[in-house]
């Protein structure tokens, strides 16, 4: 067993978990943060994307123990005081989601992508979302949502 303390969405969480516990299972099973989804077992789908110390990371690629002491941001931490984060707002406005299963991962990946490149081209968005699969939308409205997010965030920043 490993004793792990992770700051999740601003609150320190300490749990004793089996060594093999993945970060995604820590979030879902130990903390009940079920907004982070599991869609594969080979780190291809990106449904479990969260931020670890400010970087977008697939939480199935990391043991909880490896995230000990880290700061983790999940989809549940994106909206502030009931107000949607601009990326959440953009996904909804652009109909960038249908079933919603990939959406938390898409939103977290988008947040990561826009941190590196505040105004990406379509090609850069395709590349940036290569690690996130969606089966419903055909991605067309997701790409639109990423562009809209970028616009909203840039507007906010200036």
């Amino acid at each position, binding site marked *: 067993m490993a004793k792990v303390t992770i700051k999740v969405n601003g609150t320190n969480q300490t749990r004793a978990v*089996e060594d*093999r516990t993945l970060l995604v299972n820590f979030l*879902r099973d130990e903390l*009940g*943060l*079920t*907004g*982070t*989804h*599991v*869609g*594969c*077992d*080979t780190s*291809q*789908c990106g*449904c479990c994307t969260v931020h670890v110390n400010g970087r977008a990371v697939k939480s199935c690629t990391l043991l909880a123990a490896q995230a000990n002491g880290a700061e983790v941001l*999940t*989809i*549940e931490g*994106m*909206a502030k005081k009931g107000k*949607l984060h601009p990326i*959440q707002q953009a*996904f*909804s*406005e*652009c*109909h*960038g*989601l*249908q*079933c*919603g*299963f*990939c*959406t*938390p991962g898409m*939103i977290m990946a988008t947040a990561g992508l826009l941190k590196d490149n505040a105004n990406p081209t*379509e*090609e850069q*968005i*395709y590349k940036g*979302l*290569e690690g*996130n*699969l*969606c*089966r*419903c*939308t*055909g*991605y*067309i*409205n*997701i*790409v639109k949502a990423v562009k809209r997010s970028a616009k909203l965030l840039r507007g906010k920043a200036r």
Partner: protein
Amino acid sequence: MADTHAPHHHGNRVEDRRLVTGTGKYAADWSLPGQLYACFVRSDRAHAEIVSVNAEQARKYPGVKRVYTGEDALAAGYTKYFVIVSYPGRGGKHIIKPPRPVLAARKVRHVGDALAMVVADTAVAAQDAAELVEVEYRDLPAVVSAEQALAPGAPQLHEEAPGNLAFDFESGNEEAAGAAIAQAAHVTRLKLEVSRVAPSPMELRGCTVRYDAADGTYHVHVCIQGINMMRKQLAAITDVPEDRIVVHAQDIGGSFGQRSAAYPEYVAQMMAAKELGRPIRWISTRAEGFASDTHGRANTVTGELALDRGGKLLGLRLDWISDMGGYLSATGSASHTRNPSTCMTGVYRIPALYGRFRLAFTNTVPVAAYRGAGRPDMAYVIERLVSQAAAELKIDPAELRRRNFIPKEAFPYKTPTGSTYEATDLHGVLERALKFADWKSFPARRRRSEKAGKLRGLGIATVIENTGAGLFPKDQVEIEATSAGGIDVYTVSQSQGQGHETSFGMIVAQTLGVPLERVRIRQGVKPLIGNHTGGSRSTAGAGSACKLAALKLIQQGKSLAAERLEVEPSQVEYAGGVFHTRGSKRKVTLGELAGKKPINVMAEGTFGPTFPNGCHITEVEIDPATGVTRIVAYNAVDDCGNVINHTIVEGQVHGAVTQGAGQIFGEQVVYDRETGQLLTGSFMDYCMPRAGLVPHVRMQDYPVPSVSNALGVKGVGESGCTASIPSLANAVMDALRPLGVPPVDMPFTPARVWHAISSAKQKSQ
């Protein structure tokens, strides 16, 4: 020109709030007190006798409660499987439904066939213990191709099905089609593969079953397409009465036909939940999903299209072989017989049609409905034949279509295979699409691509499909108006991403003239009669019932208001949630009327099939050096009847077009021909579409309202697949044909396209 962004509704669906904040509830998000965890032991062989299953070590593993095997399934009698086909086939012979124990007993028939279930205190204990189950097999030869399975001497899967033939079905007139082909001036022949694909909704399949011993009820929390279909199947397999099975679901992470079935795992969990007295939870892995979630398509079709010298279609004959996998799924056999045969004439007037459909067992994952369920397959075959014939006869492919369309005045059109197409305007759709896609200037665009060293192809598909089939005879919707002014609408259809809470909400809100915010759509919580969401039927069916129920609420409200206002009901008028007397200022709101007790109304209806149709014109550019193909133009003109919410309809088309493009350019489930091993068992090997595969879809509506339902809508969920698959394939063939490339099968992967180009070049040298 109609703009697809008409001011109807821009995103911001009702369901979005919870889904973008991570507060949706999918199958894996149910967590029941005291739950135990199941893990399945699956066959690593394609075809083998089970000599023994030794679970001794697994049973001793800490935390393990019980290990179930095929013998437990046999003892429980859980060996039936629900199959919707009940109509006879050729010569009046019925489909053969071999037994399927919910845990494989004595024999396994595909890699991934579940043969034991370990139940333990934790998921990891169950998984660890499952690895300790020792299975001794006696290997049998395997067959993974339907054509080979039907050939003499093939390994036999089920003793009940000699020659591996599950069903031999026919449609149309064999003699007439034969004569037309024998006498025709020109016959175009193609043998086409509609490849086997993995539907792969992003949510992993999962189920948690709780048994309530007090009233003998099973509570099944599972990803579904509708509560009624799931319950009906579970009851059929277990003989538990339907009213003792309650199905629970909130959010479903995609489905595409794959979630409609009651899978064997769920029944095994029912067995354990009752015996162990605790909820049993199981969440699939993606690896298990590839090896046990039903696959789609998997047809090999030989088509012959007869034409006269003027390019008039005279006859069509198809020899259609479908791969059913190791067992019959609930829907697959209907998806590959009735569904394609209902639209076998496509959009054309063809005097003589005949199709023979043979369904074969193979050592592969069972095949079931997948977005379009046989209709895209049929459209693919017809549209490739028509474009091939156009090329052979040197007629413009749009012109060949134009000459053969069912004329406007022939609607409603009774097809030679027994469908009655409702009215549409095929010529209107085509002309609009040709203009929209700038068909005439293609040669200039092709030359431009050539200058850049690329091969450019133009593809067209004009398609139609029947939608709206269901298992239940009618669709009911209940509305409850509450004192707080809320309008709760109950339906048993189930969104898996289609946005029912928004579009159904809009239907009710618009009918009642109240804000959408006051309407709440509740799916699957009241026991009503009605169909699941599948076959592009929900807006036409449940959506129509929503409208009727709202109208009924106004009627009922008028009588209640008349009493309250002390006038005759005929004196009461209604607008915007308020009843008032004619010519006076006295009024009462819906909410006030519901003050003491909610007003309940229920409406129902049987809504006929709808026939969405459209013309998709696409352009691709191929890099001959690498075989990489890019979609450079996608133009879609669709008649999907009246549109409730443009944004949602657009989303449905985007998604379906991309699934079609996925199948055309990369997706394919591959089995090793010798060993029957699954070679595409993860997203590393199975080529899912990614962002950018379909960069843009230009869309235009060409609505001809349906007369078969209360809204004038036509099903739109699948039409994008039905049109994109043939259109894109035709575009690729159009790019390759000038090089002398003979017909190529999907998927048009870079390797396959590159090989086709190089061998054509070698031949011409």
